[in-house]
Every structure is written in C-alpha cells, then in structure tokens.
C-alpha cells in the first residue's frame, strides 16, 4: 500500500514537471519569453557595468517587461516601431498590478511600471524599490504643472493626468436645470437614492478621486461629505464599469465617473452629459517608474524617455484606449471634444500616500453603517 503511494506520487510529480515544462515550450510566444529569460541571465551579471555605462546602446531586439493598466493595445507596437526594442506587456487594473508588484518584491519581474496611481508609486519609492536620480532627456518638455509632480529623488515621471472623477448624468431622466453643477450639490436631498460611485476600498481610480476631498476639506470634512451622501442613499459599486452600467441601466441618474469612462459612454451614443465643476475635478496622474534592480536599465530608460516625447503623447491621444487626458509635455493637443478648460486638482502624492490606508479603511468600514 505504502509503496504504490510513494510510487504514484513520484510518477505524478514527474508527469506534472514534464507537462509544465512541455507547456512552457509549447506555445510560440512563451518560448521567446523563456529564451530571453535565459539570455538575460548572463546579462544580469554585467548589469552593474551596463548601469555605469548607461549611454551604451543595448543590443537591438532586447526586451523589457512593462506593467501597466492602460494603453496595452497600442504601446508595444509604437515603441517597437520607434526603437526596435520589444515590450512584454502585463495589463491589469491598478489594484491587480500593484498586488503583483508587491508579491514579486523579492524577485521583481517588471522593468517599468506605468500606471495612474501616483500615491502608490510614491509609496514604492519610499520603500526603495525604484531607480532614482535619473533625468530623461525629454523631461525638459514637461509643463510646469507636471514638473511640480516629479519627486525630489526623480524616481518617477508624469506622462499625463486625467480626471479621476467627473459628474455625469442621464439626460433622459434629468433636465439640464435639475442636474448638479458642483460637488457640493450632490449632498442635496434632490439626489436622494440617485447617485452612484465606485468603492475606493476596491476600485483603483476611486482613491485619487476621494483623496482630494479629504486633503481639501480635512479628514473630518471629507468624512462628513461622503458620509452625508451615503446616508442619502448613494449606491457604492465595486468598480467604475459597474457604475457606468448602473447609469445606463437607469439604476442611478447621477454618477461620479472616471474621465475616459465618461467620454466613452458619450461616444457610444449613450444619453449622458458630462459636467466639469467650476472648482475643478480631482485629478489622477499617470507616472512611469523604473525598477531599481532592472537588468535592462538602458532600454527601460529609453522607454520612459519615449513616453515623455510630445509626439508619442499626441499619438496616444489620437489612437489610445484611455485617450482623454491632459498630456504632460508641452505642445500636445488634447482630444477635441474634451472640455478645453478642464481644471484638475491633484492631491499631494506624499499626503495621499500617507493617508491611503486610513481613508480606504474608513470607506471599507462604511459598508456596515
């Protein structure tokens, strides 16, 4: 009895191993992946040299792995066309990507992180996971407002910013006169049970949205503001897509929705109107950062510099999937139908990072109120 157990276990183990290795070389893409991994191993030993002579051109065909949450459909081709280097893209929502980065902490698999959660990236830098003190050539093109977002240790660079939340309403249900005009209007009784928003404890873009209110009004003021709306029957959905669905399904008439999401609904022909409150919309900055121990520093730098190129940003606006944003480089035109004097309020990254756990926990705890 004992014998067959050990025997069969061993056999299964063997089977499993052969299978998984077979699978690794079965599909064509992973083969390329695996072989470059192997090729990268010797390069690793020389990575210190590469860093020292950062300007030396890396071999053509070298690949880097980028973790991002948007633009996955276009960015790989754009970069390869321009530089000849290949991008391996891992896409996911903000929270998934950050979970991966955190879980890989002991042996990071990413070279560049390009994501619209600046406070979280700031947090990574505080833990010493980012390459510091490097200035890309194209950083000179940054608009003043974006230069202000570059941290003192130069660990990440902003490539653009968008509204983490704008006001939207269903024009079939509300007239223009009845629609809310400012953030404060949402606390009115008129909108009882009619408002929808994403849960900051779960949805990644919702945090930059709420954090500005908390920074602006103070912790208590922020809790009052959102607390009043929740008492007023505001519906809290796990994520932005569910908010959008609730709006199109008529569950709610007014919503706070991420900018590109809002414009996509309008462009899809849905009867939705977007309102940019005069006091401005809370903004979310997309930043690019390089992993500290990357084995492909030269290509990674090339990529970050590429993202700051005005031409590249213009192309992202013209062709990308998250194309409604304010570019960080001078001389780039925003989408024509985007509000021309859209004002973005950006919470301070250090403040937002410091209070992230506290604010998110508060929202999660509201689930039992």
């Amino acid at each position, binding site marked *: *009895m004992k014998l*067959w*157990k050990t025997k*069969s*276990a061993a056999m*299964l*183990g063997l089977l*499993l191993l052969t*299978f*998984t*290795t077979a*699978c*690794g070389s079965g599909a064509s*893409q*992973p083969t390329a*992946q695996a072989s470059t991994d192997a090729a990268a191993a010797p390069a690793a030993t020389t990575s210190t040299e590469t860093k020292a002579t950062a300007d030396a051109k890396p071999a053509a065909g070298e690949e880097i*792995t980028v973790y991002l949450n948007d633009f*996955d459909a276009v960015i790989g081709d754009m970069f390869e066309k321009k530089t000849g280097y290949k991008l391996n*893209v891992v*896409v996911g929502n903000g*929270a*998934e990507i*950050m*979970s*991966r980065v*955190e*879980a*890989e902490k*002991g*042996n990071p*698999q990413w070279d560049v992180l390009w994501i619209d959660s600046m*406070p979280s990236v700031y*947090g990574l830098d505080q833990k010493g996971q980012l390459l510091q003190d490097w200035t890309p050539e194209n950083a000179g093109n940054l608009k003043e407002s974006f230069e202000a977002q570059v941290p003192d240790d130069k660990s990440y660079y902003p490539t653009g910013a968008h509204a983490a939340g704008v006001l939207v309403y269903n024009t079939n249900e509300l007239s223009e006169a009845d629609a809310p005009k400012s953030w404060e209007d949402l606390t009115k009784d008129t909108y009882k049970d009619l408002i*929808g928003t994403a849960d900051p*404890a*779960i949805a990644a873009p919702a945090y930059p949205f709420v954090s500005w209110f908390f920074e602006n009004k103070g912790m208590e003021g922020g809790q009052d503001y959102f607390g009043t709306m929740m008492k007023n029957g505001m*519906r809290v*959905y796990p*994520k*932005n*897509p*569910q908010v959008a*669905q*609730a709006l*199109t*399904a*008529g*569950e709610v008439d007014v919503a706070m929705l991420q900018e590109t999401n809002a414009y*996509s*609904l309008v462009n899809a*022909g*849905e*009867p939705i109107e977007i309102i940019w409150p005069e006091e401005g919309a809370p903004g979310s900055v997309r930043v690019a950062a390089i992993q500290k121990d990357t084995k492909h520093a030269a290509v990674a730098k090339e990529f970050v510099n590429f993202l700051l190129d005005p031409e590249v940003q213009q192309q992202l606006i013209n062709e990308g*999937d998250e194309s409604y944003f304010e570019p960080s480089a001078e001389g780039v035109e925003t989408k024509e139908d985007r509000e021309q004097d859209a004002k973005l309020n950006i919470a301070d990254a250090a403040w937002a990072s410091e209070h*992230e*756990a506290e604010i998110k*926990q508060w929202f*999660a705890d509201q*689930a*039992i109120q």
Partner: protein
Amino acid sequence: MTIVLAVLVLFPLAAVIVQVLLPGIFFGSLNFGEIGLLLELFERPLWRKSLENSLLLGLGTAVLGTLLGTVLAMARMQWKFPGARWLDAAVWVLFIMPSFILAQGWIMFSTGNGLAASVFGWHWVTAAVFQPAGLIVIMTLSKFPLAYLSVKAAMEWKVEMLSDAARLCGASPFKVWRTVQAPLLLPAILSGMALVFMDTIGDFGLPSAVAAVYRFPTLPYSIYSAIYTSPIRFDMAGVLSLYLVALIAVAMLLQFWVLRRSRYDILSGRAVPSVPKPAGRRMTWALAIGNALFLLVVIGIPIGSSIVTSLLKIQTNGLTASNLTLENYASLLSEGSSLLPGLGRSLLIAGSAAVIGLIVGLGASFVLSYSRFRFKRGIETASLISFAVPGVVLGIGYIFVWNQPWLENLGIRLYGKPGILVLAAIAGAIPVITRVMTGAMAKVPESLLDAAQMQGGSLISRIRHILAPLVRGALISAGLAAFGACVFDLAVNSILFPPNFETLPVAIDDAFEDLRFGYASAATVAGGGIVVGIMMILERLLRRKEASA
C-alpha cells in the same frame, strides 16, 4: 498524492498565511509580524460583520441550493420528460459562468426600470431582490448546479431491490423515497452541500454587485479591500483567508460526523444502471412545463440579459428593433481581436488541467475512500481549500512560492510562464473532482476491490476494471466540471497570466473595464456557448460508449 496536493493547494495558501507571522520571509528577511492581527476579527466591526454575513449567506445558500439541486437531480434521473437534456446544459452553463456575469443579468432584470418592471410590470421584484434574503435566493439559483451534479453522478447506479422490497411491504412511493432512496444518497448530498457552501462563502463577484444598494460586506469583500490598498495588506488577507479555511474545516467536520454513523457501500452484483422511466402522460407534461419555466428563470434572466446586452447598439435605449445590432459579434472575429487566441489558450489550459486534475483527484478520492491512512480527513479538507479561498489570495501565494530566485537555477521558476496557469487551474479543479468522486465512491464497497485483489488484480487494473466503470458517470461529470470552471476562472488568471499571454477571462474583463459592455457580453456569450458545446459533445460521446458497452 499528498505531495501533489500540498504543492498545488497548500503551499501557496500556507505562504500567504505564513507571511502574516513572518512578513519578510519571502523577500529574504526574517522579522515577526503581529500576532494580534489574528484577534482583530473580534475588534474590527467590518470584519465581524463580514464573517456573520458570509456565514448567513453560505448556510442559507447551502441549504436551499442543496434542496433544489437534489430534487432536480432526482426528478431528472427518475423520469423521462422532454427538455431534460436542456436542464443538464443549463446546469453546465450556470456552473461555468463567472458569478459577476450572472449578477449583471439579475441586476438588469430587477432594477427599478429593469425588464421585470418595465416589460412585465412586476414592480415588487426590485424590493424583493435587493435585500439579503433576495441575495440568498439569487445565490441559490446560481449555485445549485454543484449539488445537482454531485447527486446526479451518484445516482448512476441503483439497487432496485431495496426500493422494491419497501414497495412490496406497502410503502408509498414518497415513503420509499424518504426512507430508502434519499438516505442512501446522503454522502452525495452532503458532498454537494459542502461544495455549495464553499463556493458561496468564497464568492466575491455576485454579492458585491447585487448588494451595491444596501451594502452587505462578506469575507471576500474584506479580503479584497485589504489587498486593494496601498501599502498592500497581504497579512490581513492571510488572516481573513485563515478564517475562511476554518469555516471549511468546521463544515467538513460536521459532514464526517453525520456520515460516521452509517455505511453506504450498497453496490453489489445486483446494481443496475439508472435509466429514467416514462412517467404518466400528465406527469410528463407537468415535468416538462415545470422544467421549462424553471430554465426560463435560472438561465433566461442572467444569460438572457447578457445576450440582450450583446445585441444592443446603445445600452440606455434598451430593447427596441432599431437598437439591435450584430456588430459586437462581428468585431469578435475581426483582426486584432484578442478573443480567439485567448479562447484557444484558455481551452488548452483548462483541458490540461482537467486531465491532470482528474488523475490526481481520482487518486486522492481513492485514498480517501479506501485507504486507512491516518490523516486522510486532513487531506480531504485541504483538497477543498482552493474552492473557498478567493483566487486573488491563492494567486498571490503562487507568486510567493513560484517566483523564488533559486527556482530559476533549477529551471522551474514557473511564475511568468503558462505552466503556472495550468498549476493554478489544477488546484481549482481538484475540489470539484474529489468531492464528486468521493460522493460516488462511497457507494462502491471495498469488498469488490478486495475480491479483485485476491484474484491478483494490480492496483491499476483494479481501478481500471472495477472502480472506473462503476463511477464512470461521476468521472465524466467531474472532468467536465473541472474543464468548464477553469476556462472562465478570472481571479487567478488576472493575477498570474504571463506577459503577452492574455486568456479568455482576462480579455473579457479588459473589455468590461473599458466599458465595451456589448463586446464583453458578446465575448462571454460566444465563449460560453463554445465551451458548453464542447462539453455537451464530450458528454454525449463518452456516455454513448457506455450505453453500447
């Protein structure tokens, strides 16, 4: 067997839990975490409430879902009626569809101006659905397939003489059912119940979407909120997962306690394969109509809504002739669409996982049913864990375990390669397989195998010639269930998929996040249709062979 189980399920989960106590262990530093976190459950109101809600939801759904699944399975195996095959197909559809998709359908149907109110004028539906009791009903209608599959698989063979004897003694058909047939199915019913319970307490998508109106935090909600924050609290996720595991252990203990009192190995030379009998004419009609109405609710509402969504040009404008389009389906096939390659990869992964999972699961069930191994109860509980613990937590555990630098030198650093998805998929398939198999094996007496062994039959030949034919239906069900469930398993996929290796659920979720609802629904409907089609064909082929044998 133990080793394989450990590698697949226990290591990753243990990794997540170990790092509660030793946060730096996977990153090369040794420091101690706060033990106090373990007790925080009793201090943080959210956590306490989550636990209560999860228990309420899990128990309620387990009781109702098992009842529903058992009754349906029995009716299906007892009588012949038109549309019975459709019931089987519907069960597979519900079983493989990701729960958040089912949730969307129910929401679209029942909101204030949803189909129920606007088309049928049933305004009460909104209030009835959007409350905890309504959530339990929706969960029941979505999770009963687990109980159905388990019971149906166990009813494949029956010993008529027991029922006949009871009938001869003057018992009414109902009394025979209540005192003979139902009790004999107890192991399978309890297996199904355990599965329903676990799948329910581990589900994040459905409760969180349906409960947006009134807030109903569950343990998975709290786990997600711990992970989706920065700094990320893997330790909190670990603690909460530990509670989920504890709940499973309690559920399993209860099951052992119930089963300990009796033995069920009733199959003997007189067992015959179950064949549904013709019911009377009136009965047949009643069954057919009841079945059709039931399918209309459990499939029509959730899947119908997805189909409607996939056909609309403008979502807000609703179902009108001028608003219909097939564009979304056309774009599935267009160049650059990630659907087909994604589907191909997912099918490949699910297929390999089902085959390997079946071998591992069959072995595990065999050990559980016939060996005298001391810790087999422990193995049984462990084999179920991956079902209840949210995929994200397991996924993180997989990264901890399979991304260690030293594995690279051995060439088995699987994270970042497709192999990791197969591994995770096997882990996801094992609970379903072992549950369905042990439920069926409980009826096969050890003496049949012993007799074969006395005649010199080797282990392999005993399994092949005695056991496998007797539990064939269960084997098929288990394999197909594992296959179908793997194809749409989003949570594990989204955190583990290698660069440039998008799978079907990831592609669908990506479209959903970009608000391409029509496209996402079309991809779900098409993908789901293809997968269920494959499953139905496989089932037909495998079962037909049995009939001719």
